[in-house]
């Protein structure tokens, strides 16, 4: 019969803590091995998550920058009409965005092209990002 509490001296006798020998080396090694098996994939996943998050953040930023520039290009078509002849143009815009503008020959009309294909590319740390659009060139 165990004695749960000695109220006189105020010591609690915990039956689990009776064994004062502690853990053996084998037990510790086994525990560490099990922990390794569990924690290594967990940490790898954690690092993968952080990496993915960073990549997505980069993608989001690149998309927003390219969207802004695309709107600028589409909005100021009059200005860019001087550049848009029958040849392919490319230049580097703000924030290292590579701009490629090429005429779509299918929509050629009266020695001019009605539609120009715009491709915006941005190199990131993880991958390169791209947005495509068109510019309608109607002057009548």
């Amino acid at each position, binding site marked *: 019969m165990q004695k749960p509490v000695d109220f006189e001296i105020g010591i609690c006798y915990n039956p689990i803590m009776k064994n004062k020998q502690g853990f053996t080396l084998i037990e510790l090694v086994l525990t560490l091995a099990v922990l390794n098996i569990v924690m290594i994939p967990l940490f790898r996943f954690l690092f993968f*998550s952080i990496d993915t998050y960073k990549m997505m953040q980069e993608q989001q930023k690149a998309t927003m920058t390219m969207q802004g520039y695309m709107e600028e290009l589409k909005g100021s078509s009059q200005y860019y009409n001087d550049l848009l002849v029958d040849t392919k143009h490319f230049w580097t815009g703000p924030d290292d965005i590579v701009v490629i503008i090429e005429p779509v020959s299918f929509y050629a009309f009266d020695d001019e092209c009605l539609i120009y294909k715009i491709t915006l590319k941005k190199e990131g740390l993880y991958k390169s990002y791209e947005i495509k*659009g068109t510019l*309608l060139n109607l002057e009548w």
Partner: protein
Amino acid sequence: MNNTKITNHKGSILLMSVILMTFLIFLLGALINTTIICYKLKSSQHTYTYNGYMSESGLDEGVALAFILYNNVLDECIEIYSNLYHSTLLTVIDLNKGHYHLSETPLSKYIIQNGLDCYILSEQAIRKDFEDFFIKTFDDEFNKIIKNYQSVIDSYIRLSIIKEQFQFNEGRSQYYLQSSYNLKNVPRKHQITIKIAPPELSDTFISCSKINFEICHWRILYGY
């Protein structure tokens, strides 16, 4: 009372391990779930923007096709009606010379009698006929083009006429074009209204002084 379930603590470590492992599995599950949601959210934003521009490109193509068709139909109509105008003019001269009677000519609907044995060309009749023919030809051809449309920009672009207001009496028609693009299950839609009216031609139907081609109501529709 001798309750072995309470006094025997030898199996508690297994129970604790199971609880701990379950907790860890739930934690891992939650982490995976959060990462996947975050990935999908941010990835779909890029797809959303990309698809939006591609959908807009479909409308650009639609407008360009309509514009090219308008000019092609115009050239065709000018050729037909300038010939008709000159033929009618020659017929009027012959009629006034008394070579034959008005009922004998197939162009009688373009000629009006102005007094006894005096015939004049009805420019208004030719113009009305021209406008009707122009609108009808454009309508037939445009419907055919949009029906057989295949984008040269991107094969995933879909273009359709969702509503057509063909106002034959007013001599103009209105087309509601809709373009959609659905890549990676992120659909985007755009709409546009094109108003078409017959061009204004010169007196002798040889050249066009003004084309009536108007784009209005550019709308963006967010998804289905």
